[in-house]
Every structure is written in structure tokens, then in C-alpha cells.
């Protein structure tokens, strides 16, 4: 009986993980195909299609664009999120709970709605479709996330530490840069890497807000319109690889607990 339950639960777990990871595995395996179609039988392994991706100027420039947008937008989102969290945690503001709710609200709004809203707004403001516009969109979606992560880690136990710094003569900017920021590093880095991950493979907003220069997910979508091709598998695998690296960085930083 025990053994049967153990067997069943192991089988169940295996099925769940297969369900989650099989598509990615198929994607990665057929990116190593040596023939022209990403369908069985498997003819690889070969790096032919990776070479093709790296030789494709449109894809490599889209890759560079994606990296740039991800890095800049997540840096801005983390910086603004940190300042907002610090403001809410350390000062009594009128309607604080309501404002805090409002700042995290975009987390619940679909990217499509946010993208459409920004499109209309940028149109009205005269900001053309561009990587800048997409980057601003990524700040909009990632700022609430950064705020939520950093705010949750900004505990009351740090209030006295900041007070001690002030008591010893630190000015407000010194308290922020020499005490609050170093103590909050893990949460700030974690939110930075998570935002990078989200910006890196975000499609809808980039699709709506860019035109000539665009990001990698949008370029992949362009590629897919002309049918399946191991090149799309190869570039998809690369996107997946970078996401995994960012996610690992996030986990390492957030889950690494310092001794108390």
C-alpha cells in the first residue's frame, strides 16, 4: 500500500514536470536539428541553426536591443521601486495604504491593457514608437513588482539602525546611501533580476510600442509568421537560457540567508 502510494505520487510528480517542461525540451532538442525542419526524426545534434541566428543581423540587433531595454528598464524600475518603498516605510503619508495599493495595482492589469494605454498616451504626447517607449512600458510593469519586493523586506527593525546613523551625525542622503541601501542590497538585486527576466521575454508591450528597432520576442514573432524553422528553435532556446540564468541569479540572491 505504502509503496503503491509512493509510486503513484512519484508518477504524478513526473507527469506534472513533464507537462511543464516538455515543450521547452522539445524546443531545445530540435534547435539542434541538422536538417531544415524542426520535426521528428531528430537528425542532430548540430549547431548549424545557432550559427544561422548569430549570422542574422536582424536577430542579433534585436538581441542587443532586448538586453539594453531589459538592463535599463529594470535598473530604473528597481531604483524607483526602492525610493517608493523607502518613502512608504519611513514616512507617514496621508492616504498611505491607498497609495500603496495604487502603486501595486498595475500587477493585476493585463499587459495588453497597459500597452494600449501607453500607446494612446505616447501618441498624444508625440513620443514615437521606439525602444524608449517599450522601455518605459517595461518600467511601468516592473516598478510595482520591485516596489512590492523591496517594501516587504524593509522591516521595522531597520528603523533604529537608520536612527542610530542619524544620531551619529549622518545626513539623510548619507543614511540612505551608507545604511539603508547596503542593508537592502539583496532585495534590490532580487527585484532587479526579476524585472530583467520579465522585460527580457516580454512581448505584448514591445510589440505595441516598437516599430523599426525592436526586441527579440517581437523579432521571433516575425520569424514565426513565415513558418516553423529550427532557427526559431535556436533563438527561442537562447531566450530561454538567458531567462534561466536571470532566474537563478534571483533565487541565489533572495534565498541566500545571511546568518542573523
Amino acid at each position: 500500500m505504502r509503496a503503491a502510494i509512493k509510486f503513484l505520487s512519484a508518477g504524478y510528480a513526473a507527469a506534472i514536470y513533464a507537462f511543464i517542461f516538455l515543450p521547452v525540451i522539445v524546443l531545445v532538442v530540435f534547435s539542434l536539428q541538422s536538417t531544415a525542419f524542426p520535426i521528428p526524426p531528430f537528425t542532430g545534434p548540430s549547431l548549424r541553426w545557432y550559427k544561422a541566428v548569430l549570422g542574422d543581423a536582424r536577430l542579433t540587433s534585436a538581441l542587443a536591443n532586448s538586453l539594453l531595454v531589459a538592463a535599463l528598464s529594470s535598473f530604473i524600475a528597481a531604483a524607483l521601486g526602492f525610493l517608493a518603498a523607502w518613502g512608504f516605510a519611513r514616512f507617514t503619508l496621508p492616504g498611505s495604504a491607498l497609495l500603496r495599493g495604487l502603486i501595486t495595482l498595475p500587477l493585476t492589469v493585463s499587459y495588453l491593457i497597459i500597452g494600449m494605454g501607453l500607446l494612446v498616451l505616447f501618441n498624444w504626447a508625440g513620443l514615437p514608437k521606439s525602444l524608449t517607449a517599450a522601455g518605459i512600458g517595461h518600467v511601468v510593469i516592473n516598478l510595482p513588482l520591485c516596489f512590492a519586493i523591496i517594501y516587504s523586506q524593509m522591516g521595522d527593525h531597520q528603523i533604529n539602525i537608520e536612527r542610530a546613523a542619524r544620531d551619529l551625525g549622518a545626513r539623510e542622503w548619507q543614511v540612505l546611501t551608507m545604511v539603508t541601501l547596503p542593508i537592502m542590497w539583496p532585495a534590490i538585486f532580487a527585484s532587479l533580476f526579476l524585472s530583467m527576466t520579465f522585460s527580457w521575454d516580454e512581448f505584448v508591450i514591445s510589440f505595441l510600442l516598437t516599430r523599426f528597432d525592436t526586441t527579440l520576442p517581437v523579432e521571433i514573432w516575425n520569424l514565426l509568421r513565415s513558418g516553423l524553422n529550427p532557427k526559431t528553435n535556436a533563438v527561442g532556446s537562447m531566450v530561454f537560457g538567458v531567462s534561466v540564468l536571470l532566474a537563478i541569479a534571483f533565487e541565489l540572491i533572495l534565498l541566500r540567508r545571511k546568518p542573523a
Partner: protein
Amino acid sequence: MSEALVEVRNVSHRFGATEVLADVSLSIAPGSYTVLLGPSGSGKTTLLSILGGFLVPSKGKVFIRGEDCTALPPAKRPTTTVFQDYALFPHMSVGGNVGFGLRMRRVARDERDRLAREVLAIVGLPEAFGRRPHQLSGGQRQRVALARALAVEPAVLLLDEPLGALDLKLRRQMQDELKAIQQRVGTAFIHVTHDQEEAMALANHCVVLNRGRIEDEGPPERIYLRPTSRFSATFMGESTIMPTADAWLAIRPEHLRLSREPGTTRLGEARVTAVVFQGGFKRVTAEATDGQAFIAKVPAETNVAPGDKVAPSCRAEDMIHLER
């Protein structure tokens, strides 16, 4: 007495509708060890926060070295605070912590490291300079917090229940050291606690607070032997309190006898309710038929048990008259 170092004039403070300090005036001499003693909610921590500049009182003024500091921020006053939870900077070494105040005063690195080592030696932690706060024990962190606050040579050092987080044995040990350090550096210490033994051991000036008011103030010996209010007679050590026609009589437990002895006054009859053996003595509580409670400390070898009939008495000069 020399001129006051700290002068608190008619300070009142309220949080919303609650008055936590009511017209408190206090004067603190240079080089003194002042203990603000009171139960929780007595306003002692609020008073310390006002002295440290973390709170601006609703009313009244605070002068330090003759200068009006009432609304001056903590950084600009000649005070530093040792926080109850130590509030050490976790990302800096012990040396970095102790030198922080000097760094804010733009003291060059070599000089501040030298001074930090000096202060660490004073608090008995000369070897901790390069270590991190999380590598230290509670008692050691306490010393680092003390060293950090002393390093900038404040005129007044404020300590907010500094020994509250330590276990009893360590607390008694740190008490002796605090007193020795204070005498060595000569800085005025103002120390908040609810522990009356701590107050008696440390203070040369004890301020008993209750419900935002100063109940009693003076040397601890005087407050213990001749308390001026019913509150300080029961908070600073225990007392038997007996009503008289227009006032209260307080008798310290060590002065209460359980039987009539030559030269003592009889206080009635009572039945023993509890006997607690405490090593050097027994703590006896008794109750008369009219509900009057008695507390006595008797020699450990005294033969007494719950239910015994006793006749409490004491010498007339040991009765303390308290105004109602």
C-alpha cells in the same frame, strides 16, 4: 552642585489624545549617572527620546549645556543613544560601526581607526575591531553599541533599556561594567529601565516616573529608605502600606518583624498566606482579617509556614509617613 548639564523645563508630550508626559522638569549634573525608572507606559522612554532629539515635546523646553535643544535634530545635539536592540550596522565591521560617528565628522581614516580601537578597549572588546556584528554574542554587541555611542565623545549618553535583552547573570555583570565605564569616561549617562535593582545598582541620581509624572527623585538610597510617595515605596522595592487617619505608612519588608519584640510597635494580627524561600532570606506574606496585607523578609532559618498566626510589628523609626 555644579551647574546643570541638562535642564528639562516643564515638558509635556501627548500622542494623540494620550498624555504621556505631564509637566516634567528635571536637572542633570555633569558626570552623573541618572536612571529614569518606571513601569511601562510611565513615559520614561518618551522622555529619553525627547532628550535624544527623536521627538519634539508638545510643550516645554530642553537645554543641554545651556543651549536650547528642544527642536534640534539628533545629529546636531551633543547626545548619542544606545538603542535597546543595539541597532548596529550589520554590513559594517565592528571597527566601521564604532568609527561611523567620527567618519560623519570627517575624521581621517587612520585617526578614526585608532580612536575606535581605543574606545573598544575601554568597553573591553579590544580584539573585536575586524569582526562583524553577527559574529558577536548579545553582550558583545551591547558593548559595541556603547563604544559606537561613546566614540564621538558626547556630553550626554542616553541608554534605552540597554540591558533588557540580556539574561540575568550577564545583566548584573554588564551593570557593574557600565558603572565602571561611566566613571572612567566621566560622561553623564541617562539610563532608562523598569528594573529597580538595576536602578539602585547604577544610579547616583534616580528619577521615578509614573504615568508621565516624576513621583520621586534623588539618590537611590534616599528613595529606598525614605520614599516620598506611595508609588515609589512600592515600585522601588516592596513595602507594606497601611492607611492612617490622613496618610499612608510604609514599612520596608526587612523592617517588619513577625512577632512582638522589645521596642517595636504592634501592627495587629495576621495569618501567613505564603512563604517563599529565596536563599539568604524568606519572603513572607500575611493578611489580617480586615484585608490588610503584610510583606516581610525574615532570616532564612525562621520557622514559619502558611497558616501560622503572626503579630507583625516594627520599630517606630522604620515607619515611613507618606502624604496621601
